[in-house]
């Protein structure tokens, strides 16, 4: 992805991320474009890891950023943008997984193959991936933030807007759920 870092730097130079959020909140589209460019890589990786499907992740990220643009005037504290946006992303991921489940039950066309199930649509899925697919969106997100993005628990708590102890507990529960899902695999 050689072009994106240059582009991000170019757009953010001279303005802090928080200032960009403030400008975007007032309706500055270019500032919002810079916000997107600045956060895009991490957000897309998060969505891809949570959903295990690049196409779905692209849709989800698109929807989440559009939702963010629409609702940005309601964000009171620009410093809380990341936590606020993570919540939007989590909600969109939750919707996508619900829709994926529903699509398994929907009737299909004349010769359409059945929709892939939640586990099988990840090519070459390992048992661990299969187990991960059984986790809730909240559990997936906290594991992705901590293990994929190496986010310290303190930052994780701040982004999720929860106390440090709660963050530790949720991370522990997510790991336990992953292990439990592994053990339940056939």
């Amino acid at each position, binding site marked *: 992805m050689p072009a994106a870092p240059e582009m991000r730097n170019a757009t953010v130079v001279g303005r802090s991320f928080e200032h960009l959020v403030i400008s975007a909140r007032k309706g500055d589209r270019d500032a919002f474009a810079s916000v997107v460019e600045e956060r895009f890589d991490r957000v897309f990786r998060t969505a891809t890891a949570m959903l295990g499907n690049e196409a779905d992740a692209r849709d989800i990220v698109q*929807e989440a950023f559009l939702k963010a*643009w629409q609702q940005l005037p309601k964000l009171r504290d620009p410093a809380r943008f990341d936590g606020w946006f993570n919540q939007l992303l989590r909600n969109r991921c939750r919707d*996508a997984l619900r829709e994926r489940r529903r699509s398994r039950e929907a009737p299909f066309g004349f010769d359409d193959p059945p929709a892939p199930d939640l586990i099988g649509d990840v090519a070459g899925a390992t048992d661990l991936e299969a187990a991960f697919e059984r986790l809730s969106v909240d559990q997936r997100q906290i594991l992705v933030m901590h293990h994929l993005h190496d986010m310290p628990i303190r930052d994780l708590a701040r982004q999720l807007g929860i106390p440090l102890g709660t963050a530790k507990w949720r991370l522990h529960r997510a790991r336990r759920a992953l292990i439990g899902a592994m053990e339940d695999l056939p």
Partner: protein
Amino acid sequence: MNRQISNDDIKRMLRHRARHADDVALAEVLRLLAVTPQEEAGRLGGLPAIRALVLVMLLAAALIGGALLLGYWLPDPPDSTLPPDGLAYSNGCAVVSTDARAPSGETAVPETLVPRLVGGCPWPIVYDLSWSADGRFLSYSSGSGFFCGGCGSESAQQAIRDSGMWVLDTETGQRSQFQPGCTTPICSYDSVVISPDGGRLAYASAPFYWVIDIATGVTVNLGTAPRVPASAAIAWSPDSTRLALIDNSKLSVVSVDGSTRTTVFDSGTSAVRDPAWSPTGQRIAFAVSGSGGGIRTVRADGSGLVTIDPAGGSAAHPTWSPDGRRIAYVGRGPGAGSGIWVMSADGSEARALEPDCSCAISMSAPVWAPGGDYLAFVRRHSLYVAALDGSAPRLIESLQTFGGGFVWTPPAPAWRPALPGEAAE
């Protein structure tokens, strides 16, 4: 089953799941972001916006004045290599058709095809312009699920009433609206394309692809569509008997009555999109994202797969020249920069339309002029026409009403096909 899981195991697994993210350029994903409906007066209003508007108007007036003064002293450019007219596009307030032959420095007065779109400015929500092969019918879609910022306003209500698919008969001026299966206030359809014979519209309305007969309104289900299809997920064969459809990683050819469906390409995991039939109907060009992706062509029966641009996941929008000898696309070519590339249909002789330009962001699909010697495209906020002789693209219109700085996937213009007996210039 009793298994130990370490933190490293989890990290490895998550990195594996997110691996594609490394391969997908920002621009490639952002191109899916359509024009947002954030033109609500409340959002953009306020004193700072008014001041900025006044400033911009003053600046524009000064620039126009300067350009007119300059144009007065300069001789007219030669007109031996002028592009044809009939270039339809949405300027944010209307669908218009312009004469791209206006000399630089002069402003052509576009012909209004569809006035006062979806409630008028500032509701720039028109997509998927396409012409029938005889240049008589122009189809487009209107409406967006993202759009309801102020649903109580009159303009929003008008936009809701105008949502759906439309076909304009340019001969009679009659417009026909189609809202099949719509149960929501805003009837939104994706990838709307009129058949070359002008008889049908193909479209995606999740979770299915459909074809509707324009005369009878009868619809045919063509099978499952992605939840949010890419902007160009459908392509008609030139004889209007088959369609190329995208379903995430698959490219399929489906008969217009839905009776046959053949998967002609399946990447397995990488997203496939932007199918385009060659003018003879023998091959289909398409884009594949992810590592090992790029532009490919395949015969309509699934044989003869060729990768003609192994540029990775950054290539999109392949379009055939009218004679089928060349393909233009957006992405990175073999050289530096990004933007529109033109190559022979076998992948050789690729060259950038604008060398060393990093201009793939916010760019529509390139559209060939009927004579094959010009390309039109919308980039960021402006409509351009470029000759293939290496000269700089000509600015046709700055689409200032078209959504400010947040236009990442501008709808492509649509060049009217040459009419029978009309010489391509």
